[in-house]
């Protein structure tokens, strides 16, 4: 595996996203809509919003992740770039890493936006900012890695848009639960050991990343 190749692929994906503006013009507004709709659905009761804020945050992130993964797959599928990549000497693990890095950057940017919007709308206060930062990074690594892996499984399938959520959401559930617990602790809303859940997030991030690096090549072949 060459990190240089992974970086080239990540830079290419990020450049495409920057140019297409789908992230800023479509997915980011969608993110904000989710938060506002949650607010309305919960009757704008501040106490309820505070209590459910961490969970709502990560549910919103999962929904955003589905869109971002679909988009990452589409970039490679539209004009058969994925097939062209197979005819280069680039190791599949580099392709996986590059795609996952690009997805991570996009998701983290959206999470940052979502975080500050929720702080303002839900009147949340942060008691442990370090736990928030570190757990968000690890959870996003796990989501980006598993999203990249499951994205390639559904690539080339006609029913990709509906198949991806069915396959991916159950895999992301442990990350969402762990991240919700760490955020709940960091916001002082739940009586949980956030750093213990942080350990769980670390395990998932490592497992999904290593698994992705090993499995990606075979999955691309099969897709």
């Amino acid at each position, binding site marked *: 595996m060459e990190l240089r*190749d992974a970086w*080239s692929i990540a830079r*290419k994906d990020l*450049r*495409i996203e920057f*140019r*297409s503006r789908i992230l800023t013009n479509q997915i980011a507004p969608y993110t904000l809509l989710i938060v506002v709709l949650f607010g309305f659905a919960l009757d704008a009761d501040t106490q309820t919003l505070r209590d459910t804020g961490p969970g709502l945050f990560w549910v919103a992130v999962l929904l955003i992740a589905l869109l971002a993964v679909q988009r990452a797959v589409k*970039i490679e599928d*539209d*004009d*058969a*770039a994925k*097939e*062209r*990549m*197979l*005819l*280069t*000497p*680039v190791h599949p693990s580099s392709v996986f890493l590059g795609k996952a890095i690009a997805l991570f950057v996009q998701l983290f940017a959206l999470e940052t936006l979502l975080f500050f919007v929720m702080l303002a709308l839900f009147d949340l206060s942060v008691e442990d900012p370090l736990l928030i930062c570190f757990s968000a990074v690890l959870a996003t690594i796990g989501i980006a890695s598993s999203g990249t892996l499951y994205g390639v499984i559904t690539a080339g399938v006609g029913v990709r848009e509906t198949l991806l959520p069915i396959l991916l959401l159950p895999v992301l559930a442990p990350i969402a639960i762990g991240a919700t617990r760490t955020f709940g602790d960091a916001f002082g809303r739940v009586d949980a050991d956030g750093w213990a859940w942080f350990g769980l997030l670390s395990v998932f991030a490592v497992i999904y990343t290593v698994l992705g690096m090993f499995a990606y090549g075979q999955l691309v072949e099969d897709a």
Partner: protein
Amino acid sequence: MNEVINLQEAVVTLGQFPALTGVTLQVSQGEIVTVCGPNGAGKSTLLRLCAGLLPVREGSASVLGEDLHTNRRSIRPDIGLLGHKSGLYDDLTVEENVAFWGSMVRAGDLEVKEAIKYMGLDGRLRNVLVRQLSAGQRRRTSFAGLVVQRPSLWLLDEPHAALDTEGRDLVNNLIQDAAASGATVLLVSHAPKELSSPSGRFVTLAGGQITSDTNKEGSGDGTS
């Protein structure tokens, strides 16, 4: 001369459908071979088989000295495949696309610039987004990516599609330059006469089998 492609009764299935039903074909290094045939004859499948993208179900098949049954992935970096789709990114410019594919095959900046120039894409087209290009310009950009790659085996599916006269001449020159430098070219064309001066053969594929194999002058074995 070395045999670059050696297929013996090769069978390839797409799902349950037998796309190639026993193809026998030998192509030597430096040859230009044009594959003709009606729609659905298996021409594109033949190219994808030779690129190591499809498994051989029955028969024997080797490309660039590697057995496709056991080692089809190892040949891929030496293959340049131009299919119906161009393998480009719409939101990158011509130069960014060629540079990206160049970086994937370890080509330098100079090679990228030369490839862009060779395909007539320097000047104002260089910084144009691929989504804004005409079909012919996209085709040229895709070819520039192959020029950068400098593959040993060129597999071209309708290489003249969407190109104007100048573009067709350019592609013909490229094919002949590639063959002259020792590369082998297998191309699929509905209109083989567009290749103005190929030094190669014409192979006809129908129903997943080769039905004739003749050289430019018309001589040949008549069947596979």
